[in-house]
């Protein structure tokens, strides 16, 4: 029994086919599993191991290295507040403390109804709009406590189109598989190399 639902399984196989070695698909497949389940489950890792020709332990070993992979369920919205240097100077620690009070959870926790998980982030790269807040890897540009609260209210009462639910990292999918057969690459590169040598000879 596949853990990936049929549509997801098909996409998973398409992703594996993009790489010279199946194992390279590990990160994209972990993202895909999170898109399906909202987090990275043990069953998903078993299937990713099968697809990438590795073991579930290796997949777990890789996945657990990365902050974006959650091996336990998280909220529909993962809210990240940056407190790194540019945000620190702009009141990032204070905004994070406000977020804790406002959501009623500490950093790393999920609200009781499962809507929000709060995280303290390293620099997210939106330093001219500091302190920087992201929801599900989207910049929301709420730099004040009030703006933060109204965003949370909005998310509580309904979705915001620009912010997908957690796990859906990219709403854009690759539209084509690999277009160039390996033999074509080999032949073409050999032809260009031969041309270069004959030009050199002509020049020299």
């Amino acid at each position, binding site marked *: 029994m596949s853990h990936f639902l049929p549509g997801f399984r098909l996409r998973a196989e398409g992703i594996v086919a*993009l790489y*010279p*070695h199946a*194992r*390279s698909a*590990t*990160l*994209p497949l*972990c*993202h895909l599993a999170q898109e399906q389940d909202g987090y990275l489950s043990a069953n998903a890792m078993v299937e990713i191991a099968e697809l*990438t020709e*590795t073991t579930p332990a290796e997949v777990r*070993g*890789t996945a657990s*290295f*990365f*902050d*974006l*992979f959650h091996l336990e369920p998280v909220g529909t919205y993962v809210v990240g507040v940056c*407190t*790194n*240097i*540019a945000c*620190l*100077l702009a009141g990032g620690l204070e905004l994070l403390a406000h977020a804790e009070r406002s959501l009623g959870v500490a950093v790393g926790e999920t609200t009781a109804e499962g809507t929000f998980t709060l995280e303290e*982030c*390293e*620099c*997210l*790269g*939106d*330093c*001219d709009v*500091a302190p920087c807040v*992201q929801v599900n*890897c*989207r*910049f929301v540009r709420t730099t004040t406590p009030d703006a933060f609260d109204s965003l949370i209210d909005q998310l509580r009462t309904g979705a915001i189109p620009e912010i*997908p639910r957690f796990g859906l*990292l*990219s*709403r*854009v*999918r*690759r*539209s*084509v598989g*690999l*277009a*160039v057969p390996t033999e*074509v*690459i080999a032949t*073409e*590169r050999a*032809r*260009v*190399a031969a*041309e*270069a040598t004959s*030009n050199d000879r002509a020049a020299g």
Partner: protein
Amino acid sequence: MAKLDAPQIVTSRVGLDDGHTLARYLATGGYESLRRALSMSPAAVAEEVDAASLLGRGGAGFPAGRKWSMLKKDPVTYLVVNGDESEPATFKDRLLMERDPHQLVEGVIISAWALQVTAAFIFVRGEFGLGLERVLTAVNDAYAHGALGLDIFGSGFSLDVVVHPGAGAYICGDETALLETLEGKRGFPRIKPPFYPAAIGLYGQPTVVNNVETLSNIPWIVLNGGRAFAALGKGRSTGTRLFALSGRVRRPGVYEIEMVHNTFRDLIFDPALGGGTTDDVAIKAVIPGGASSPWFGPDLLDVPLGQDEVAEHGSMLGSGSVIVIGANDCAVRAAWRLTRFFQRESCGQCTPCREGAGWLERILRRLETGGGRREDIDLLLDVCDNIAPGLGWPPQQTTICPLGPSIPSPITSAIALCKDEFFAHVEHGGCTDG
């Protein structure tokens, strides 16, 4: 006086609402450079890049042309784009990926032609949801437009480009850790030698790794010639460069300006650039090139924004991020937060980095929150000296990658510039800044 008459080489479209679309890209000269490049020989394209003496924009500043010439001949070679941008307060590659992704893709295809690589991968930092969507769309559209895939523009050249999402780990910005991640493993930097992926890279094959901004310069260089690029800037620092300005400035943002002809003071104070400090506060320190770089005091504001010029003063231009720390900002807190960043992001392979970062973070935290001791300042310096013996710049390498030996930068800088603040923290039982 700031010198602002240089052309916008990589930011000509970032101000447009639709600069990321294929239609706008084509309407503004997009993919002309690729056509030009395909009419030239790969070696001729590489020569233009060499003539431009384009320095890598990812942090190390290695000349791109030289790196390209080091790519070992092999039937299978790769080009990998480093879009992992996670150096604190660096936010220029994200701008390029979100706002002008076709420029990057065109740069990648031209480079792939020059290098004759088998395939190319664009690694995009996981947290950049929009950036990822924009780059993916650009790649999809480039295939549909005939700029990617089989027989590009009827030239006989064929190429596949795969966009690869990261997943949140600063260390994957190191090119060898990035390659490990691309192979589906943890982001552990590789043990050197081999020193250069150009000899042994992705899957053990020769690989060129270049930064997003570096490759975004390529279309302009091919269209205008390497010499036109080299005519801008001075000495080894040619062309323009993106500077990400943040902290206590009125107009934080990303500015493309000519190298060397402008100083830190120009960048921070020119009305068209930073516009001065917030509330005209005095400057306590400037971090000139990302979290890893040693800080400059206010006496060094007139140092030109050039690679060698900054290096001469004991720091580095690094990732091009300039952070302004104001007179009222707590230096201990800043050093503590940056150290915590390194401690969280250390991959844990090397003892000096893994353990050292933890110790330093704990000492700085107790200084900041009360519980610090007078001896802590010497203790900090002693631990720093264990990580990077001699505390010089560039630091002595004691670890697998440069992250470890960079940890002392904010600490030794803060102590050198603001030692009194550390003692005040001891006396007042912590930070009095609130």
